[in-house]
């Protein structure tokens, strides 16, 4: 990091194109925190203008400087402390030309913090088409700060904005106080000096947050902290109303109310839900019907690659490690890139178009019955890709109880890490045939999704009665205008999510497959003597048959085999043998490891490289000669993977977000116990 880099922070209300502007400014030279998700974490990007390097920080959208959710708290703390080391040099406040009045409210609050800001008015193109014209010079004069008209989507004004960032901004304290009538400016100034605050508004905020206790003073003025806050809103809107007519000219003849017309259908009491159902159905059908082709290619490719590396490299331990350990292990992650890409394509399309908040509107009443909010729908839907961004995006839920319940049940939904496990198990026991237009395996998969959805709601319903909450909770939500999503944003979001998923899951899988391979190819005395034991016992068999016996015995006596045997008594009632036990142990860290482990275990000491599915199909119980993966075992495994919290990253994120060991433990335990019971019931009924 060079010191002469200028730091810029992007601030604004939610849903006004902040991410679009960020992508326009920085393109692909950006990085997010560890996890995917739209502006949930601090995003940083870079660009250069007039040979000055800029660093841009994209902050989550906020509605005011009074925090109602965790997300807002984070931004407000960041903005209020302008003395901190990494405080931005300049702040861009983005407002939408379509929602100017309401967005200016936040602008004035931040402006009063006396920090260097530039006001960027977005969606100028859409506004002008609708007959809304903004006089930027007059606005700049009125609010005393640079104003740039832009359209983040079409690139209009982006260069002007960059040029404005190069120029120095002078900050002078706004002497006029538009946020309180009870406390006079002289009184405020006195308090500011007395408490060593950065500005009068900092002092005012400290009073309303009870950080500065001036109860006597307030009683004397016949007011309270609560009244001060209410009066601030009234005064600020009064101030905005006093100048807005000079700044905005509206030509009613051009008004086009597409959103109202669209909402008539999309929020219709019947059609609204039908359309939402159809959208969900389309998403899941594409996940399986369309993704199946590239997934088959990847599966074939991996198995060819393993063959190729086996024949290319000289025989030996390293060759085996690569072709039987690493390649099939990593292949297990790569195979579900197509599904991740499709899922996030739909998600970012829904988010960008403005439909996401309609889902919240439609679902709020129903979600309340389960102790959650309409805002839980987005975290829950994200959890169908990965519980981690899902749990993090629950930050937007204002009500603590609703938020906690959402976090607790989110990992029950079918995340993409479960998909490869489901795909393999379903393809083993469900025929690949069609009933009418529906693929049976696709229907089975849909069934697994419904199980996930059903149990998460069931769990939420139970938690609703267990967890105590104070206030009934609220929902105040802005429903943005429908807009055509930008292709660039969609692509960047898909790229971010897919690559971070592959990278994060890939790291774990690579490490696990190497460790597993080493554990499977080394062992104690029995392991080393396997060859002589078999030669002695089965000397009437052919050499080839003896080789198979040796391989089986070696694996059974390896360190890995011993580990599997140790837990066998616990998992036997579920219908699992020690080999499946090994896969269970290794997938404690991450579910998708199951497939990699299975393919590693079953390809060790086998000369042919088959696809995972065929290898598992061939697996027979050495005692009974029956297939290991019977219907009962496969269904039992499906149940176990549907409910168990086998994901260390989720446990870590739950702790990070709840800051509570108790709730993290509750989540892990209720899921694991439920998983064991359901797997047990499934196996005992079906066997």
């Amino acid at each position, binding site marked *: 990091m060079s010191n002469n880099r200028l730091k810029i922070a992007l601030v604004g209300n939610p849903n006004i194109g902040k991410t679009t502007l960020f992508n326009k400014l920085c393109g692909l030279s950006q990085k997010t925190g560890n996890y995917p998700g739209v502006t949930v974490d601090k995003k940083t990007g870079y660009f250069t203008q007039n040979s000055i390097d800029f660093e841009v920080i994209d902050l989550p959208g906020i509605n005011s400087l009074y925090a*109602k959710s965790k997300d807002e708290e984070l931004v407000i703390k960041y903005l209020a402390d302008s003395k901190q080391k990494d405080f931005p040099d300049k702040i861009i406040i983005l407002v939408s030309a*379509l*929602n100017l009045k309401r967005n200016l409210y936040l602008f004035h609050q931040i402006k009063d913090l006396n920090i260097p800001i530039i006001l960027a008015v977005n969606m100028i193109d859409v506004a002008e088409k609708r007959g809304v014209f903004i006089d930027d010079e007059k606005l700049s004069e009125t609010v005393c700060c640079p104003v740039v008209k832009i359209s983040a989507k079409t690139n209009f004004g982006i260069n002007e904005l960059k040029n404005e960032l190069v120029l120095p901004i002078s900050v002078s304290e706004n002497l006029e106080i538009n946020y309180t009538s009870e406390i006079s400016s002289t009184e405020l100034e006195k308090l500011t000096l007395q408490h060593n605050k950065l500005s009068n508004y900092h002092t005012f905020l400290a009073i309303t947050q009870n950080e500065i206790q001036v109860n006597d003073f307030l009683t004397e003025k016949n007011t309270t902290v609560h009244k001060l806050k*209410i009066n601030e809103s009234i005064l600020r809107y009064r101030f905005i109303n006093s100048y807005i007519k000079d700044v905005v000219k509206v030509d009613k003849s051009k008004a086009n109310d597409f*959103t109202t017309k669209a909402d008539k259908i999309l929020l219709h009491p019947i059609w609204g839900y039908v359309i939402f159902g159809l959208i969900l159905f389309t998403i899941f059908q594409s996940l399986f019907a369309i993704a199946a082709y590239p997934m088959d290619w990847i599966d074939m490719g991996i198995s060819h690659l393993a063959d190729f590396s086996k024949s290319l490299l000289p025989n030996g331990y390293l060759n085996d490690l690569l072709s039987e350990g690493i390649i099939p292990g990593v292949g297990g992650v790569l195979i579900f890139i197509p599904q991740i890409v499709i899922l996030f394509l739909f998600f970012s399309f829904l988010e960008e178009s403005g439909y996401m908040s309609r889902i919240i509107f439609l679902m709020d009443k129903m979600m309340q019955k389960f102790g959650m909010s309409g805002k839980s729908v987005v975290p829950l839907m994200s959890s169908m890709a990965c519980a981690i961004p899902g749990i993090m995006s629950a930050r937007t839920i204002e009500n603590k109880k609703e938020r906690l319940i959402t976090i607790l049940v989110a990992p029950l939904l079918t995340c993409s890490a479960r998909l490869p496990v489901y795909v393999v198990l379903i393809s083993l026991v469900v025929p690949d045939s069609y009933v009418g237009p529906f693929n049976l395996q696709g229907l089975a998969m849909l069934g697994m999704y419904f199980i996930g959805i059903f149990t998460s709601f069931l769990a939420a319903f139970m938690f609703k009665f267990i967890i105590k909450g104070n206030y009934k909770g609220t929902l*105040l939500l802005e429903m943005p205008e429908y807009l055509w999503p930008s292709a660039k944003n969609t692509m960047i979001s898909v790229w971010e999510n897919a690559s971070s998923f592959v990278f994060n899951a890939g790291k774990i899988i690579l490490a696990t497959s190497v460790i597993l391979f080493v554990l499977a190819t080394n062992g104690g005395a029995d392991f080393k003597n396997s060859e002589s034991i078999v030669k002695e016992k089965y000397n009437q068999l052919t050499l080839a048959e003896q080789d198979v016996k040796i391989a089986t015995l070696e694996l059974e006596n390896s360190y890995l085999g011993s580990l599997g045997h140790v837990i066998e008594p616990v998992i036997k009632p579920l219908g699992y043998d020690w080999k499946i036990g090994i896969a269970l142990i290794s997938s404690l860290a991450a579910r998708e490891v199951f497939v990699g482990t299975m393919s590693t275990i079953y390809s060790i000491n086998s000369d042919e490289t088959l696809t995972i599915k065929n290898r598992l199909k061939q697996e027979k119980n050495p005692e009974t000669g029956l297939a290991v993966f019977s219907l009962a075992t496969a269904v039992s495994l499906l149940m176990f993977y549907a409910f168990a919290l086998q994901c260390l990253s989720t446990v870590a994120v739950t702790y990070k977000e709840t800051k509570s060991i108790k709730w993290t433990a509750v989540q892990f335990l209720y899921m694991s116990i439920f998983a064991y019971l359901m797997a047990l019931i499934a196996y005992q009924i079906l066997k």
Partner: protein
Amino acid sequence: MKTNLTNIKTNQTAVIKTVLDNPLITKLFEFGLLPGAQFKVVNIAPFKGPISILINDTRIALRQHEAKFILVE
């Protein structure tokens, strides 16, 4: 005629008279739901679900629970 926001039907226009004190009053005010503001109810979700209103050219959705605090004319 004074009544609360939940009694306004879709496509009807009304003016906010007063907002009764409630834990969310500051938030409502920040969203522009202030006394004197004119609004139009655009959508109501079924089974007494949230209400979507058009106010200051912005669509805001709120629950019935909060809407009861908003007295209109």
